[in-house]
């Protein structure tokens, strides 16, 4: 975190130009992991919001439903995610106002988000998020990712941030077409457990969201069982009395 005087100078300089550009994120969410399964999409994220190295918020919902057919999960700057939710609410509202029987599907929302992120990047004022968009419409499953500079793609299983390093290898080894709901949840919990052990900014409080043709369900927050009973952790000072 920068000292107060430097931040003031930043504001002084940029007040001449009248606006400030995003330089760095403040309150950040860590990884989101998602996969396609037989009936739709499963997405998991923890509920932590870090303020640098402080775990400031422990009940943030980082997965939200969008319209009737999609869910969005975000890692990165939380305030930018809230801004994105405002843009998406506006899109959904306009969609409903048409009242023509059509509704925005996950492909459309993914495309819209890509354009928004890319255009903000072009103005050097990015929304500091990596977003995962998943949904089902008319039997077609969709799962895609958009980064803060506009890079986007679709895949069968996606993870952001640290998840890309730690969860993707597990997903690549164990994902297959037509996972059942139970298999999908077990696989996601495996990924989240690894992240919990190894990602400093993870908290042991998760939500798993499910979207199928029928609709969205976001689970109540719950914790995963962890195991710390390794022999090496017992009596850690056994070899060196007086140390901690």
């Amino acid at each position, binding site marked *: 975190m*920068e000292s107060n005087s*430097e931040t003031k*100078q*930043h504001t002084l*300089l940029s007040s001449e130009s009248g606006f400030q550009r*995003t*330089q*760095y994120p403040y309150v950040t969410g860590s990884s989101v992991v998602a996969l396609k399964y037989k009936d739709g999409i499963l997405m998991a994220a923890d509920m932590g919001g870090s303020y640098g190295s402080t775990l400031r918020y422990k009940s943030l919902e980082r997965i939200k439903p969008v319209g009737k057919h999609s869910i969005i999960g975000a890692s990165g700057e939380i305030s930018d995610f809230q801004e994105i939710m405002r843009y998406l609410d506006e899109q959904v509202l306009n969609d409903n106002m048409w009242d023509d029987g059509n509704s925005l599907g996950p492909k459309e929302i993914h495309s819209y988000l*890509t354009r928004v992120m*890319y255009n903000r*990047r*072009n103005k*050097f004022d*990015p929304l*500091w998020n990596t977003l995962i968009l998943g949904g089902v419409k008319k039997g077609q499953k969709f799962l895609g*990712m958009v*980064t*803060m*500079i*506009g*890079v*986007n*793609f*679709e*895949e069968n299983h996606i993870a952001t941030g640290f998840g*890309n*390093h730690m969860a*993707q290898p597990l997903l690549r080894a164990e994902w297959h077409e037509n996972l059942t709901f139970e298999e999908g949840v077990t696989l996601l919990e495996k990924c989240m457990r690894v992240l919990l052990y190894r990602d400093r900014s993870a908290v042991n409080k998760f939500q798993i969201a499910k979207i199928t043709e029928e609709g969205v369900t976001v689970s109540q927050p719950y914790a995963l069982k962890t195991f710390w009973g390794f022999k090496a952790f017992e009596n850690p000072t056994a070899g060196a009395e007086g140390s901690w």
Partner: protein
Amino acid sequence: MSKQQARFEPYDFNGGTCVAIAGADYCVVAADTRMSTGYNILTRDYSKIYKLADKCLMASSGFQADVRALQKVLGAKHLIYQHQHNKQMSCPAMARLLSNTLYYKRFFPYYTFNVLVGFDEEGKGCVYTYDAVGSYEKVGYSAQGSGAKLIMPVLDNQLKSPSPLLLPALDAVTPLTEAEAIDVVKDVFASATERDIYTGDKLEIVIVNADGIRREYAELRKD
């Protein structure tokens, strides 16, 4: 003066290699389907080839968000052209349009490395090769992207095209048949995959000839 914080980096390198070869009555464009960032693979199944007009395709590697934006911009301009002129854009015209579009962003470039293939006004295959800011050249064959420097020398050696240094200038299209050219493409990609970390997974080959457009896939090493 206050200390400049590290600004966010607006570019990323998502890797990949593109190759294009022009023959007497066909042209081939091929690209791998791997998309990477840093040392990670984001996806093994992303197409870099885009159809601009009936007989004009483009393959681009580099920064994927810019590639996608460029494809959309060209697609939109082509649509307007069709509305205004009641015909498809010719390949040489599309080549110039791509060059101008790239130069338009000379001071905040599209970080894309492109090859354009199609048929010229006489129906002969042509390949245009570009850099990131729009300088372009009509050639008989080209490679762009992360594996280009590995592939280009092999194409020079294997395609038996007339030397570009000859006077009077001869047309640079390769005398190879379509099947032979496709074999060369598969070979060079297999070689590039061995040594370039950004190239691999799967190879998408698109062949354009008098019968239309055909798509083939070949497996590449996934490591």
